[in-house]
């Protein structure tokens, strides 16, 4: 059936990595999201310089800031593991080592992201 698909369909579905443009697109999408999110984060990190734990937690516990922090965590870890994947694919050429590192990086990113989101929710809802 592949003979019936257009060149565009084929390049979308099958690059050399067999996943077409999905990685490239998601890297750009998360990058665009991270521009305002990281500027928001830096602004607030500066504003919180010298604040104690209770004051910082009160800030993070507000719905708008908790929401933006969760988005920053999700986009940040997603973007980060996409970037690390490219670096691993560029420099690690032993098949099992590459596979092991890719799995480790992706598992670690999901673990850290989910853990961080749960902690933000704990501060925002349970605090």
């Amino acid at each position, binding site marked *: 059936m592949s003979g019936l698909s257009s060149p565009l369909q084929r390049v979308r579905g099958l690059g050399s990595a067999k996943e077409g443009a999905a990685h490239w697109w998601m890297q*750009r999408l998360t*990058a*665009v999201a*991270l*521009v305002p999110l*990281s*500027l928001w984060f*830096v602004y607030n*990190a*500066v*504003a*919180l*310089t*010298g*604040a*104690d*734990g*209770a*004051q*910082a*937690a009160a800030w*993070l516990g507000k719905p708008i800031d908790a929401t933006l*922090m969760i988005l920053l*965590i999700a986009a*940040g*870890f997603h973007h*980060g*593991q996409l*970037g*690390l994947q490219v*670096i691993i694919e560029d420099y690690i050429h032993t098949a099992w080592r590459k596979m092991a590192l890719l799995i480790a990086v992706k598992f670690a990113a999901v673990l*850290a992201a989910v*853990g*961080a989101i749960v*902690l*933000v929710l*704990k*501060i925002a809802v349970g605090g």
Partner: protein
Amino acid sequence: MGIPMTVSNRPLSPHLQIYRWPVSMMASMLHRASGMALAAGMLLLLWWIAALASGPAAFLTLQHFIGSFIGRLLLFGWTWSLFFHLLNGLRHLVWDTGIGYEVKSVQRFAWIVLAGSVALTLVVWTAGYAMLGAW
């Protein structure tokens, strides 16, 4: 094999130590390096959130670390990595639209990104120190 190894005196292609590094190459390498630094720095963000969730004692430990020389150095490096990666990332997004590939423009914006990232880092740290007395 029957062919003896011979020492060739022919010139080699230039290696890293020989190159006068173009600024565009520098920016490309720093983009990857700062990206890796930011990935590691996400763990600091994770620690900060975990400390906030677990209470005053954990937060004091974190503040003590960040206030130390090593802590400030890491945070300074992380701040610069963030601004460099952000500005250079915008450069990449502009390239994605198909413009800005002239050598002159590539080099000019590499310098702008480098200078801008240093300037923004200094602005943020100046503001941070100014905030220290505010709470």
